[in-house]
């Protein structure tokens, strides 16, 4: 195996509260190659904060420390804000939960996709237009020339999220971080969007971190899964072996989900005392 794309050792994120600093991520370590990694956890597990700290998006008074946080050899923590801007978008991209808040409402979709290229490359204008168009086609938008002239409010949620993915992937980054990319979408569109993302990530050989609360979804689209709870990784496993998970928290999560052919009278709930005492 070659040197990892991302190497994280003892990452800690903390925020001040009236009762002292509280660590929301407590010493998380993992490495990532050109593979698809899923981070699963419930709200407050620190999964989103982990994703954000890779891009140095934690604002003060939040504080990020780590023994090591390197992205293809670059020490992220020592990068200046200006150097980070060159990395964000160009080498690491992030897809957020809700396209409504991530797209600029007063810019056309075409202009926003082009913006991502203009900011990081010095391509001629016609080349930029061509690439933007191709990218929209790649996320299976039927009439890319028309959609490029539309404003975000004129497209549906599913299409908005596909536009987001196009925008994030057009500079051809090495790593894509997707934080709950489909939880604002309907189930039937979710699969479509994830399939597109999955295909692009595989074809371009990028690394993917898929952050989600949905165990099933993550196990379908990732190679490896980290399960987080209360700021710590409680379990790491190969996606296909999720059903054989050993940690009581993971097992509890799987059991708490209702099934399509539900026959249980009562759903088992998590008994948090089981592992929090340790």
């Amino acid at each position, binding site marked *: 195996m070659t040197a990892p794309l991302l190497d994280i050792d003892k990452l800690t994120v903390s925020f001040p509260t009236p009762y002292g600093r509280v660590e929301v991520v407590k010493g998380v370590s993992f490495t990532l190659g050109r593979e698809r990694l899923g981070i699963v956890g*419930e*709200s407050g597990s620190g999964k989103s904060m982990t994703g954000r700290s890779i891009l140095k998006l934690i604002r003060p008074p939040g504080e990020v420390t780590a023994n090591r946080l390197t992205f293809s050899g670059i020490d992220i923590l020592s990068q200046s804000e200006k150097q980070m801007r060159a990395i964000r978008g160009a080498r690491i991209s992030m897809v957020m939960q809700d396209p409504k808040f991530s797209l600029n409402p007063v810019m056309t979709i075409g202009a926003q996709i082009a913006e991502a290229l203009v900011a990081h490359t010095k391509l001629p204008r016609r080349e930029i237009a061509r690439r933007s168009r191709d990218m929209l086609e790649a996320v299976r938008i039927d009439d890319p020339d028309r959609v490029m002239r539309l404003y975000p409010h004129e497209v549906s949620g599913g299409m908005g999220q596909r536009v987001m993915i196009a925008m994030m992937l057009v500079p051809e980054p090495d790593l894509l971080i997707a934080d709950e990319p489909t939880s604002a979408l309907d*189930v039937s569109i979710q699969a479509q969007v994830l399939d597109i993302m999955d295909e692009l990530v595989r074809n371009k050989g990028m690394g993917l971190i898929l952050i989600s*609360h949905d165990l099933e979804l993550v196990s379908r689209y990732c190679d490896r899964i980290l399960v987080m709870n209360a700021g710590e990784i409680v379990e790491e496993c190969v996606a296909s072996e999720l059903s054989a998970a050993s940690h009581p928290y993971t097992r509890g*999560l799987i059991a708490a*989900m209702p099934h*399509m*052919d539900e*026959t249980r*009278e009562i759903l088992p709930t998590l008994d948090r005392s089981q592992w929090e005492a340790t």
Partner: protein
Amino acid sequence: MSAISLNNVDISYGDTKVAFGTSFEVAEGESFGLVGESGSGKSTILRAIAGLGTTWTGEVSVLGQPRKPGIDKGFASKCQMVFQDPYGSLHPRKTIDATLGEPLSVHGIGDRGGRIEAMLEAVGLDRRFRFRYPHQLSGGQRQRVAIARALMLEPKVLLLDEPTSALDVSVQAEILNLLKRLRKEQNLTFLLVTHNLPVVSFLCDRLAIMRQGRIVEIADIGQLKSGKLTDPYSRELYEASGGKTS
């Protein structure tokens, strides 16, 4: 007498029609799921039954009484609603005690303290939550408070608008268990609006699937569990939700 009955109901917002000729019946004590994706009109129908700012044409009746626009006290004591967003459904400046006491004082019911404490216990909340503000509670605890508030007037019918979709899986399980237990204890009728088929499978006896303002299929829960839905759209939804096709 059916708990909820809709006959050929059309609903429109201004010039756009959002529900077309909707008809279904929910028997007393039954739990009925109304399933669809965003924009299918499922929440609109729920709000029309509740009388929350929606006008409709056709016949709607609850427990045999035809619904008129608006909400009067008689209806309020028979039919209540639990909302989707546990963060938006509690008044941010009122303690849990004030939130739960409000329906009692609207209806002039006495023994507030006793009733509130009994209800907190029924929904599995400790007494010490009584004088807290909503921001001191977690999402699951807030949703328990919202359920408690809906039950304060001892209604027969509960309208549930995506009651667990904003919650974590483990908390969802707790709330679903709670709803199921309360339904059994108080012999409630549920009308559950959701996009989540497995939740329907756990909580409901029958379901209707909606698409673009129309009911495409009304099915028995057994049909859902065994994957024997007939309408093509229902099957599509079933597969997208992780159901296995036989």
